[in-house]
């Protein structure tokens, strides 16, 4: 077991998401930054869909009650095992009674902790990703016990530290495709959308990020239709919403842009006040 000593600002269990239930209104969910969650799992020798901890803006601590091997990826929140600073993106052996702590982020927003064998919380509708009304909790709480398997040794192959390109956290251009309603925009709106420096407002969470800058908008709502993680909606008030992993499955606002998979992962490492520009790419560019 892992015992939660401090739960932090928003920490949840996530795998790659819940699929096949969109038709009854169930969102995909899953790790916000799947580049980092997959990497953490790979380094400890897990399947990429195994459940990991997703920590938003650090400030939490955990007590390991069994031996295990872990890997921390994503945001650097100055992780320490007991009193020793530990390295990100590498396999770390932990033993019984070790305490893992995170402080404020030095870079990035979301940190991932993979544990060899994966977190064994309850799987509901084929996924362990926390979601309101599906899993018993939405986020972890102090004194929660998270089930893990005892692992005695580090697999030899997993000693290497993976070097991460800092672009993932610092990138200022968010790559997008045209959304289904993009062509309904006027030339002036398109220009604004692709030239403007946008700022993430304080209304941002796992469902979506509202942006501060407005685009004047006369487009009518559409008949309710599917939206996806990474869809950028333009609301009647001119506000843009970048939908993230916990977004609803349908919506009625025009879908003007669609983020690439990589761009969603990069967006997951941004928060209130981060700025970026959208860069339109062609569909046939391989990402």
């Amino acid at each position: 077991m892992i015992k939660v000593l401090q739960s932090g600002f928003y920490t949840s269990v996530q795998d790659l998401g819940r699929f096949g239930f969109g038709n009854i209104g169930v969102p995909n969910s899953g790790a916000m930054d799947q580049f980092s969650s997959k990497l953490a799992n790979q380094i400890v020798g897990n399947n990429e869909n195994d459940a990991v901890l997703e920590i938003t803006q650090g400030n939490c601590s955990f007590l390991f009650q069994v031996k295990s091997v872990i890997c921390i990826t994503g945001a650097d929140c100055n992780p320490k095992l007991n009193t020793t600073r530990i390295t990100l993106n590498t396999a770390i052996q932990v033993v019984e009674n070790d305490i893992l702590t995170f402080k404020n982020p030095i870079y990035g927003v979301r940190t991932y902790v993979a544990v060899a064998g994966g977190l064994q919380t309850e799987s509901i509708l084929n996924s362990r990703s926390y979601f309101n009304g599906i899993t018993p909790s939405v986020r972890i709480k102090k004194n929660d016990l998270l089930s893990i398997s005892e692992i005695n040794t580090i697999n030899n192959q997993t000693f290497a530290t993976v070097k991460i390109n800092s672009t993932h956290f610092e990138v200022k251009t968010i790559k997008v495709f045209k959304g289904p309603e993009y062509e309904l925009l006027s030339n002036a709106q398109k220009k604004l959308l692709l030239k403007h420096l946008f700022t993430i407002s304080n209304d941002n969470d796992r469902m979506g990020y509202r942006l501060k800058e407005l685009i004047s908008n006369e487009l009518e709502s559409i008949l309710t239709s599917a939206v996806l993680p990474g869809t950028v909606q333009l609301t009647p008030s001119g506000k843009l919403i970048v939908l993230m992993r916990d977004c609803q499955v349908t919506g009625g606002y025009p879908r003007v842009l669609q983020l690439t998979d990589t761009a969603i992962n990069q967006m997951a490492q941004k928060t209130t006040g981060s700025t970026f520009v959208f860069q339109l790419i062609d569909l046939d560019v391989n990402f």
Partner: protein
Amino acid sequence: MNSYKLTYKSFGNRAILIEWPAKIDEKTLKNVILFKNKILKKNTKVILEVITGYNSLTITYKFTIKNIYSEFSVLKSIYLSDFSKIEKKNYRWKIPVCYDKKFGIDLQEISQKNKLEIDAIIHLHSSQIYTVFFIGFTPGFLYLGGLDKRLFFDRKSTPRLDIKKGAVGIGGMQTGIYPSQSSGGWNIIGNSPISFFNPKSEEPCFAKSGDQIQFYKIDCEEYSQIKSLVESGFYKLEREIL
């Protein structure tokens, strides 16, 4: 089958959006569902999900789509293919609703503004048969078509934060049931003891696109009885095959 002029669009590099002419009607819905069932039958290896909207299907793929145009032609030939063998059954579900004023907290306001007696509102709401267009917004939230015009009522300008599970509401031209406690801007006229979403059940939501819903009025005592049967798992919903 009736063929429509459909448009095919890419939706990012892992999804395709197929659109029917922008209209909310049952003929379109039937065609949307038929196409969806054909796709699910023929092409499930590469497809992750097919999401229904009023006049659209969105198909998400497990992998990046390599050639969008060849994928469009695959879908177009599926649309035109013959499809007589698989008929998914649709049902009409009878849903009990308690319209007592302890649940129907906005009945009074609708009554005043729409100049209808409360009994008339209840009668109009429960005598109509509604079609399930699709399920979205939250898990188990049915988008229902067929509300009587006399019951149209604007959404609240400020959403309530604590709408109860089972609340039956009217929002603009639509009616629906909140499957779980949530915030929302619809006007609440009653509450149903039925559970519309149960993640632990083999079939988490009993209804699907193309089904019908008929509400019937129950009193507070019946409400409690049904509620406890639902909670213990012994309540059997009444349904008819369409």
